[in-house]
């Protein structure tokens, strides 16, 4: 479980995903989300907190990563491991990555926001346009002339 549970200790928060699944999460983990924090501060979170924009599988991923992130705070190995997982996810399932990113943005979790952005950056780094297209299944809609023109406009970057 999360190692950051100190003074606020083990109060449990109940959350409900858009597809009706109920999650019980430690307060310290739930408070990583600024959205939930604001709801609790406004005192509208006495019962179950509904999260209409997040599905259960994605919310599960979010919690998992929140916990991992809390654990890795002073663990370089874990940090590396967590960072390298992103490339795998983006390669194997960009759609899930996209949903995760949206959920993280909706829940307003700063630490995961940085992490998911880092994943995408690591993924894009040093990859050729062809490889990016192939991995993310993007169709090349340039005409050969357009492509040549952009190549020419980009030439300075590769000189």
């Amino acid at each position, binding site marked *: 479980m999360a190692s950051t549970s100190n003074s606020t200790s083990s109060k449990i928060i109940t959350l409900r995903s858009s597809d009706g699944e109920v999650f019980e999460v430690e307060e310290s983990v739930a408070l990583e989300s600024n959205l939930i924090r604001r709801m609790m501060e406004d005192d509208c979170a006495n019962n179950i907190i509904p999260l209409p924009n997040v599905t259960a599988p994605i919310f599960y991923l979010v919690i998992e990563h929140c916990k991992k992130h809390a654990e890795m705070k002073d663990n370089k190995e874990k940090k590396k491991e967590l960072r390298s997982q992103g490339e795998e996810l983006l390669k194997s399932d960009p759609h899930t990555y996209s949903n995760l*990113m*949206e959920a993280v943005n909706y829940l307003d979790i700063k630490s995961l926001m940085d992490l998911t952005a880092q994943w995408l950056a690591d993924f*894009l780094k040093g990859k050729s346009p062809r490889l990016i297209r192939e991995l993310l299944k993007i169709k090349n809609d340039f005409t050969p002339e357009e492509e040549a023109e952009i190549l020419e406009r980009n030439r300075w970057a590769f000189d």
Partner: protein
Amino acid sequence: MGLKVDWCGLQLFFSLPDDILPILSASLLHRDLCNLSLCCRSLRILAFSDVLWHIQCSITGLLSRATSRRPFLSSYRALCRFLLSARPLLGVWVHDNPNQGNFVFVMLGFLSLIACRVIPQKVGPTGFNGDPLLRAPVFEISAESDGLHGLLPPRQREQLRLPVPRFCQFHPPTLQSPAPRGRAPPQPPLLQSPLPP
């Protein structure tokens, strides 16, 4: 037909929250953005956007000196191009024999790069005693508004392909023109000055 497959990969980029873009750009090289722009039309728009290139400009460490110049260039991408091509030349350059006055410092001008030669002069035991340094302009190279042709005219660019530019290729070392023409403020040379071997 292929639309649904398409949609997935592109949707990833379109659903990126605004807050993510700066973090993303900060971890990428300008080359990565250029590669992204070659993927497809929609990504070209994203990869050319000022949000991303503004971050690239600030990574160069020269943005604070150049922010006011942004309106004169077509985009932050052009500004970034200018800064990136200017950066390796900035600093202090010393020729084989500094006694002959071959001591040049290069700094950013107004959308240009200015090089000044310091003219040999007597130095007292406590330095220059507040006297202005005598100097002569060596060259000033202007950027173009679209940044397309970069910083240097093609011929000189060829010469600059060398890892270490020799300033004497721009101007033979003659010391007869001490007129500063008011273009070069006596600014200290920038940090990160690479000294030629």
